[in-house]
């Protein structure tokens, strides 16, 4: 039985902000209360964790071994906060270590239970994923000025303004499905859509339009408020931070992957990231209106799509972490090639 203080901490935790009391009770029933002594490790960098920890009492330090900088402390997470997003969303090795700064009481949501929620409690899972995604986007927003400062101070060469204007005017071509055959098997067989059934995929495609974008086509501009979503079918989309025409690359979204602007997660945020095609690219585009219609018409499908939204921001966050390390280690783009 959870005491009143711990219950209140859970109820007011950012992760639980969209959950009702019944949903929280369900989570508690299938999760584990764990305690740690000061100095104990919850998550070890480079190793897979057990899941997501919600801190109920105490504080943890988040640090990591960084190439070129040794051991760096990132943050202190207090009661109400959570750690272990990579463990729970991707079941990948943790990118940071988390150590108890004080004696701790936590609620551990295991990876296995989280996966099961897709089948038995999809709405609850969606609400957790929504909170996680908002946290990721906030983190990206906070990191952005720091990275831009480094780029600005560094010798990164500015790209041509004229070139950027030309690229902004390159537009994709819309195809009918009869014109360009969409091979549904490539979606069905993709691990990204493992929780989507055939009806889900058919419906998703109905909300979208098939487009072919030539090389260097800007799909989402930095500083643009854009809620359009895309699924890359063939080709590649490069993401970058751009500041005063200085460009720093993040990651490439390849077939089959999903991405969207940060505005879809938080309406007040303009895109921090530029999304442009690297090569001729075929995409399924779901514009803002259709995303809203989908959300209203098919809640279950929307919940599954939101999982993809979260995954895309996890990749961007990882890429921004890598970029920050690289900017501190390398002379990046200080030379004009060719």
């Amino acid at each position: 039985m959870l005491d009143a203080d711990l219950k209140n901490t859970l109820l007011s935790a950012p992760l639980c902000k969209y959950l009702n009391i019944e949903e929280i009770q369900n989570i508690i029933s299938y999760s584990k209360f764990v305690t740690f002594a000061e100095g104990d490790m919850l998550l070890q960098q480079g190793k897979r964790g057990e899941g997501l920890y919600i801190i109920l009492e105490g504080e943890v330090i988040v640090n990591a071994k960084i190439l070129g900088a040794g051991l760096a402390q990132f943050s202190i997470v207090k009661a109400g906060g959570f750690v272990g997003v990579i463990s729970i969303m991707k079941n990948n090795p943790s990118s940071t270590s988390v150590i108890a700064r004080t004696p701790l009481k936590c609620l551990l949501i295991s990876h296995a239970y989280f996966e099961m929620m897709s089948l038995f409690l999809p709405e609850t899972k969606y609400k957790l994923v929504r909170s996680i995604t908002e946290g990721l986007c906030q983190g990206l927003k906070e990191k952005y000025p720091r990275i831009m400062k480094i780029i600005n101070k560094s010798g990164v060469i500015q790209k041509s303004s004229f070139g950027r204007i030309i690229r902004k005017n390159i537009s994709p071509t819309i195809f009918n499905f009869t014109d360009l055959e969409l091979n549904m098997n490539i979606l069905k067989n993709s691990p990204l859509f493992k929780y989507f059934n055939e009806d889900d995929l058919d419906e998703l495609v109905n909300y979208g339009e098939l487009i072919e974008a030539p090389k260097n086509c800007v799909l989402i501009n930095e500083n643009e408020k854009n809620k359009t979503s895309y699924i890359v079918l063939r080709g590649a989309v490069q993401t970058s931070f751009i500041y005063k025409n200085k460009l720093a690359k993040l990651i490439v979204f390849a077939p089959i992957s999903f991405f969207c602007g940060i505005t879809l997660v938080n309406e007040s945020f303009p895109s921090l990231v530029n999304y442009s095609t690297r090569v001729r690219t075929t995409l399924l585009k779901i514009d803002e209106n259709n995303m809203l219609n989908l959300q209203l018409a098919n809640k279950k499908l929307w919940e599954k799509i939101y999982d993809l939204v979260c995954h895309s921001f996890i990749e961007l966050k990882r890429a921004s972490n890598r970029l920050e390390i690289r900017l501190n280690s390398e002379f990046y783009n200080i030379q004009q090639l060719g």
Partner: protein
Amino acid sequence: MCRVLSYLGLPILVKELLYDSDNSFIKQSYHPQYLPRLLNLAGFGLVAWDRSSHNGLFPYIYKTEELPFYDENLHNLASKITPTCVLAHLRGVTYSSKQVVSLQNVHPFIFPGSNVALAHNGSLFDFEKMKFDLLKYIKPSLKKYIRGTTDSEWIYAVFLSQLPGLMGTYEPSDITDALLKTLKILQKVRLKHDIRINSPVNLFITNGEFIAATRYVFDYGWVPQNEDDAQHFIYHSLWYTYGESYGFYDNEYKMKGSQKRSSMIISSEPLTEDTTTWIEVPEYSMIFAKLEKNEIDITSLDITL
């Protein structure tokens, strides 16, 4: 689809790179972490520079078409030499009787009269269609040295032809410009033959004084509809780490002392399962590292063709 390893820095026992860590280079021939469905069994090659050796500007060269994990000679050699620069390659090809497994096809490639070596991780789709159009971009004196059947050797010949000379000290821009020109030539010839299929070109170059690598794919994401094996069509990985020295510290293999940069590894995948002190090179990039006054300077550049 091949694994490559390059090292620059303090003298290192080659055995520590090839055999000793939990994802050692030789282990990647039969148990690669990043391309698990295609093993690298079609040959092993290594070039290594030790300036104190006879004719120190030129490397030791070792090549075999045999399986390296059974190669006692390789193990003995690796347990003895301590070069300051290494480039090693494991060749991975599809399991087909049409593949030619021979010494002439083992990387790294290094032509007579040059001390610049190249190894390639990747494959140019429909290369047979386009290869003879590369001849006009290769210096006449180099054409005769192409002995094998690989696209990689042709890429090397084109690259070498873009350098100001076959030997000497190169500025970073000599190498990066030559790499970019090489990629542009390949792109031009592909366009001429309307080849628009995913073709990775991770190139590793060294002459003992620098190491450089590209992480690039032509027409990424465009895979033939009927293609069963997707291994050739993923974006091939490229990682690096640096520090004071690489070895066995605190019960694990790692780069020690990352605040000091006197040693660097650029490779297809990390040599350890723990990748926390390795960084992935972004897609469409190249990286160049040179030892200057006991410190390695690292330059990275976006590749835009």
